[in-house]
């Protein structure tokens, strides 16, 4: 009797762990393969045409929650300091997630008509990681910045 009970407890733990993992599985990010900072750097380089990036640039402000309520919907706002004139504007804002199965998240393509280089969206994050943003200016220069977001798996998501 006690042996069966023991087996049941083992099953419970395994199933409880599975249930906890279910949150991540549901996202579709169940594969153990995650991007690395190196892969992200090369994806960034590809997107920005290989230009030398000004890292940690004060021109790029990233608004993200410190702790994501749920990794499936993380609100993001990026503001890039730029006059947005015909002579000097932000052409692209690329967003990468260093720890997702693939690092590319979204790329915004702007024109001077936007008037202000501030964009928002909502993204999926598979786990705690750095979100890296690269702004490509009209003169070809690249400014980047990053912010860490903590993503937890709930104990009893349901």
């Amino acid at each position: 009797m006690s042996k069966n009970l023991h087996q049941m407890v083992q099953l419970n733990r395994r199933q409880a762990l599975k249930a906890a993992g279910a949150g991540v599985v549901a996202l579709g990010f169940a594969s153990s393969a995650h991007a690395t900072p190196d892969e992200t750097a090369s994806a960034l380089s590809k997107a920005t045409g290989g230009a030398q990036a000004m890292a940690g640039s004060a021109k790029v402000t990233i608004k993200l929650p410190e702790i994501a309520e749920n990794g499936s919907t993380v609100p993001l706002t990026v503001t890039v300091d730029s006059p947005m004139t015909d002579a000097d504007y932000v052409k692209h804002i690329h967003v990468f997630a260093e720890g997702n199965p693939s690092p590319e998240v979204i790329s915004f393509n702007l024109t001077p008509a936007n008037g202000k280089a501030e964009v928002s969206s909502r993204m999926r994050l598979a786990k705690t990681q750095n979100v890296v943003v690269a702004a490509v200016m009209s003169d070809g220069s690249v400014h980047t910045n990053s912010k860490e977001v903590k993503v937890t798996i709930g104990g009893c998501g349901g």
Partner: protein
Amino acid sequence: MKFTTLVAVTAVVGASFALGACTTGEPNPYGNKAGDVWSGYKTATAETHAMQDDDFENPAMPVVDAALETYNADPGNGASCASCHGAPDDATGGKIGVPMKGVGAKYPIYDPATKAPINVELRINKCRTEAQGAKAFKYESDDMQGMTALVNMQSRGMPRVTTADEPGDVLNPAFQAGKEFYYQRRGQLDMACKHCHEDNPATLIRAETLSQGQSNGFPTYRFKWQKMGSLHRRFRGCNKNIRAEPYGYGSIEYLNLETYLAWRGRGLPVEAPAVRK
């Protein structure tokens, strides 16, 4: 003399305020002070609040938009919802004088036809099949949940009310059955609703903050579901989490539980469609 009368009146008013919807039934398990009963909104982050508080930002709204189109559309026999009830926000209740306002605050109610509680989802289908000559919606479909959210939204901010706890009330048997369910251990983990939601709200289970398990925000857009879903879906998820066989959508077990939960959360404002993690 005048001052003491004023104090006495304030005390009486204050006391009835604290008790929420006045009832002669059971005492509130969470207490009677303001703030003792709270919804999941309290423990959600600022970003999540921003999504719920703005009808444009709320990711549930496109589905509600579609439901509004259905509300106004001819289902086949000319009897659109609007033809009887007027616009969803028509407080006079249209041609038949039955407004949508207040429905979300007082359901589930008793259905003499089935001698059981009936919730908003099932009431919508009752109307569709009996009054509109239309096909019933599937319970968890976007059509159904969108329409349920559209109805519940009309009671936004109104406090939830119920008399099901009062002995002799027509819903009291359902209330008692729901209460029994709430306190009944079940599943391989041998847990009852109370173990999380009454004994441990606001504490952490691994990385998750437990709520009181209130129902005033449903249908709710849950990030985990990446869509809006029903209270019964949440019940099923909870039951599965403790490795119990879940009951069906619209099942009598969940209708009874829904009746009971409406009492546990009485006084809470209707928040549909809420946004949660």
